[in-house]
């Protein structure tokens, strides 16, 4: 079976969960007998050097079976490929590759219209679509967070969406929904990495029978199979991920401020991440000022240490420096790969009590949940984690191995074969 995997970005170029999972699947399928995977990853014009003159689809860095879709003139409102030459190139690519199955991992930078083109060019091909977030439902970056107060959104509607985008009338969101759903009509099966997502999409109008849960999976980055050695105190906390608003680093910073003001300073927090530049201006300023002030403190008074970006090869060293991982996301998350990464290294996770985090973590069994967006709740949880004797050991024992790459491949193979 020839499987064409379509991804937003390539993880070699831009880090992100959806592309990482797609690439893990690509690697996994390559090792699966009877499956011939091909990867087509869409990139944006910021990768100027890769936009070869006159080309719309090219290979990638000499890698076998990997191609880049050089997206141009992308319409970010309609999520539409506006350049007819891109469509022509895609049609030609499909005709050359002749896949038996096409697995979309996103529509961003490609356009919903390419799903329709796929069905028109290959009427009998099986089309699978993995929903990595809620962008098809929610125009607010697919986060389902109300833009005016950052509260969690549970359902879309023309008027509710208009409240987030006052400049756009309700009918525009109604039209958007018609547009998205019409393109989704040609998809044979949707998958979500978390079960709770299914309910969001069913409520939105997708037929439950067309959605199934397939877990995200990764290779094991704990190459040396190290275990977390018990220490006298387990008061080292780590943040791993993008430093954007929705990942909730600002909640952690507020929690640290609060604990310090209460006189509790016997802990450290290491921040491993990047892309603070993509945070909102207010949050970026708040975090930058906090980190700058922290650096000015004498070493023995410092709690927070910014360790910068990392790649997956560095994960073992970074994980070795902490006892706990904090996942303070203020949006639903759809799988939260960082939980899997913490579990690979037997680190219990302290996480927001919503969405994928709530689905994956059992409170007081393999981790701790706190009230999402609530710095006071997180502060209390950090204090408990750092001081409660035996808690860390109990939770480490409760951690189960995270889903593997093979588990994910097996899940998708069932979907591919229509089971």
């Amino acid at each position, binding site marked *: 079976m020839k499987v064409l995997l379509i991804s937003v970005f390539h993880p070699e170029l831009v880090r992100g969960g959806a592309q990482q999972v797609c690439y893990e699947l690509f690697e996994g399928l390559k090792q699966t007998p009877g499956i011939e995977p091909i990867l087509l990853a869409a990139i944006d014009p910021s990768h100027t050097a890769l936009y070869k003159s006159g080309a719309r689809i090219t290979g990638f860095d000499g890698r076998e079976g990997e191609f880049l879709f050089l997206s141009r003139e992308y319409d970010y409102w309609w999520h*539409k490929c506006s*350049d007819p030459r891109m469509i022509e190139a895609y049609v030609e690519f499909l005709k050359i590759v002749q896949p038996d199955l096409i697995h979309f991992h996103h529509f961003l930078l490609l356009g919903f219209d390419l799903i329709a083109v796929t069905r*028109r060019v290959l009427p009998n091909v099986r089309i699978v679509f993995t929903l990595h977030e809620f962008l098809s439902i929610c125009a607010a970056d697919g986060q389902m967070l109300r833009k005016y107060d950052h509260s969690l959104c549970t359902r879309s509607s023309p008027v509710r969406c208009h409240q987030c985008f006052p400049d756009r009338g309700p009918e525009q969101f109604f039209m958007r929904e018609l547009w998205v759903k019409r393109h989704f009509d040609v998809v044979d099966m949707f998958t979500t990495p978390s079960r709770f997502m299914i309910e969001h999409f069913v409520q939105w109008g997708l037929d439950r029978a067309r959605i199934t849960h397939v877990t995200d999976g990764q290779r094991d980055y704990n190459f040396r199979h190290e275990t977390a050695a018990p220490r006298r105190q387990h008061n080292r906390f780590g943040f791993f991920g993008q430093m954007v608003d929705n990942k909730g680093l600002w909640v952690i910073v507020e929690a640290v401020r609060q604990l310090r003001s209460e006189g509790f300073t016997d802990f450290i927090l290491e921040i491993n991440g990047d892309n603070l530049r993509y945070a909102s201006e207010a949050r970026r300023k708040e975090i930058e000022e906090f980190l700058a002030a922290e650096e000015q403190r004498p070493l023995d008074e410092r709690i927070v240490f910014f360790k910068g970006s990392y790649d997956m090869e560095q994960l073992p060293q970074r994980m070795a420096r902490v006892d706990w991982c904090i996942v303070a996301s203020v949006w639903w998350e759809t799988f939260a790969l960082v939980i899997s990464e913490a579990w690979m290294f037997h680190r219990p996770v302290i996480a927001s009590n919503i969405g994928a985090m709530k689905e994956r973590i059992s409170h007081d069994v393999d981790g701790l949940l706190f009230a999402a967006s609530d710095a006071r709740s997180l502060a209390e949880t950090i204090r408990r984690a750092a001081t409660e004797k035996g808690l860390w050991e109990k939770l480490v024992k409760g951690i189960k191995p995270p889903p593997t790459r093979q588990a994910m491949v097996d899940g998708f193979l069932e979907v591919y074969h229509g089971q």
Partner: protein
Amino acid sequence: MSDEVARILGQTKPAPSLKPAPLLPQGTGGLEGFDEADFNEAGYLRRNPDVIEALRRGEFKTGYQHYAQYGIREGRTVPGAPVERRDALIATISGGSEEPDPGDFRCAVDTVIVAHRAGVMVIGWADDASTAIDCVRVISRAWHLVFRGASLVRVRRQDVEAALGGNVTHPFGFFGFVHAPDLVDMADGCTVEIWLKNDSMVSLQQPMHRVGEIELRNLVLGYLAGADFFGNQQIEGAAAVDRGLGRHVVAFNRAITSRITGAPYVERFGTLHRQPRGSIVVCLYGKSEFLAVQNCLFADRPGIEDYEFIYVLNSPELGEKLLREARASTMTYGLPQTVVVLPGNAGFGAANNAGVVASRSSRILNVNPDVFPRDPRWAARHTALLDERPAEETRLFGAALYYDDGSLMHGGMYFEMDTGISLRGGDFHPERVVRTEHYGKGAPAWAEQFVRPRPVPAVTGAFMSSDRAWYETLGGFNEDYVFGHYEDADLCLKSLQRGTPSWLQDLRLWHLEGKGSTRQPQHEGGSLVNRWLFSSLWGETIMDGLLGPAPTHPALAMPPVGTAASTETPAAEQPAQTGSKRSRRQRRAVGKTP
């Protein structure tokens, strides 16, 4: 004979007899374009006692009649403003003013704006509260133009009121526009003479601002939209347009429209696999992406293979983008379509007519870009209607349209009349303007009575299906409306006038009409003109049995059961005007119980 003339006659001594000549038809010869109302009757009689005597003997009815037949040829003069055509360009100065009284009234001209082969606009004010403006002459190097005082749009000018002081309720401001397709000389300056009825005149030297024709049209309409009237703005606006401006704006806009629709760029995409049953004509303005959205939502629905799409673009700056959209969408959704790019905004009616020219079927569906199928089988049902229903029910029909919130937006249209009193010249003048209303607007989707097949006074152009031959017999959409509005009702009334009422058929589509794009002042001005035009053209017809939600016009009575639309709707579901008791007249008109 006015009181003043009677007074003069009473004071005048007998004069020698004048032999009357056969009467000349009014409005011909030397007085063409110069109405009796503009003639200085009293002044003429004062100067010509022999004419007064002739009037006494009954040889003439008025001094104007004498002047038209003899006086002008005898070289007799008329005091005050020159007797010459009004509201039309005159190639040379045909007559000067004679001994004007030195102007001692306060006035000013704000601007004179001209456009090559287009027209002249003048804006100013005059303290004519006690004696009205007779005319405003704009005199250029090789032409001059006399704006009839009564044709000028009189507006409230609070700045003038403040400057003049006092407490007079009077529209001191004026503006006028005359369509002048022969205007070619574009001098930098001109003389503007403001004449009052008492023969006093003030002459002012003014620069002339030159603009393009589109800008001039938009300036005129924008100024009209922003005009401040004493009283009801709508009523006074319509009355002001009626006094002359409307006729000139319509003619001017028509000239622009003709030029635009005369030079379309047409490109076809996709392949017609068979002769289409219908051509869906969509007029686009400002947003090219609706092409892709409609392609997406109409494609691959039962029966759509019998239809082609014609997109007509009124925004040439988006032409290249739209052509790309069409190319991409044809590849993506597979619908055959034609794009017609116009070199300007021809308005809704003219653009749709241009789309019809490019279409290739015998059935025209005028569809707005924000209309989408609510019923996936709408196209198959539309074709079935053409095949199965009597021709008179399908010659021209509309569909039920729904808002995004699920409620009904349109179940046919009817007419109401807004009446008001316009105060001008110290007298009350009743004014009537027509308003279109939609049956069931905002009604819940389950209120089936509004979407029951039936003849209706009119249907919206947001979705209108018509037999092409009939459409062409009716002359298509009337292109006199500025930008757009009322063309749909106009077409339906033309059809009704020829014996075929428009029908509402049971097809259901979304009409995702929002608050619309930001309306420019010229659009508001265009609306004023259109409402006046529609009222002028159809007001009397509508008053004769077409007024209100339950019109009594016999053509709108339901055909007998078994020969026309289903009449299965129970009496309880017949349409009723919200908030009012349903009368017997209404019941008779809107429904029939089997």
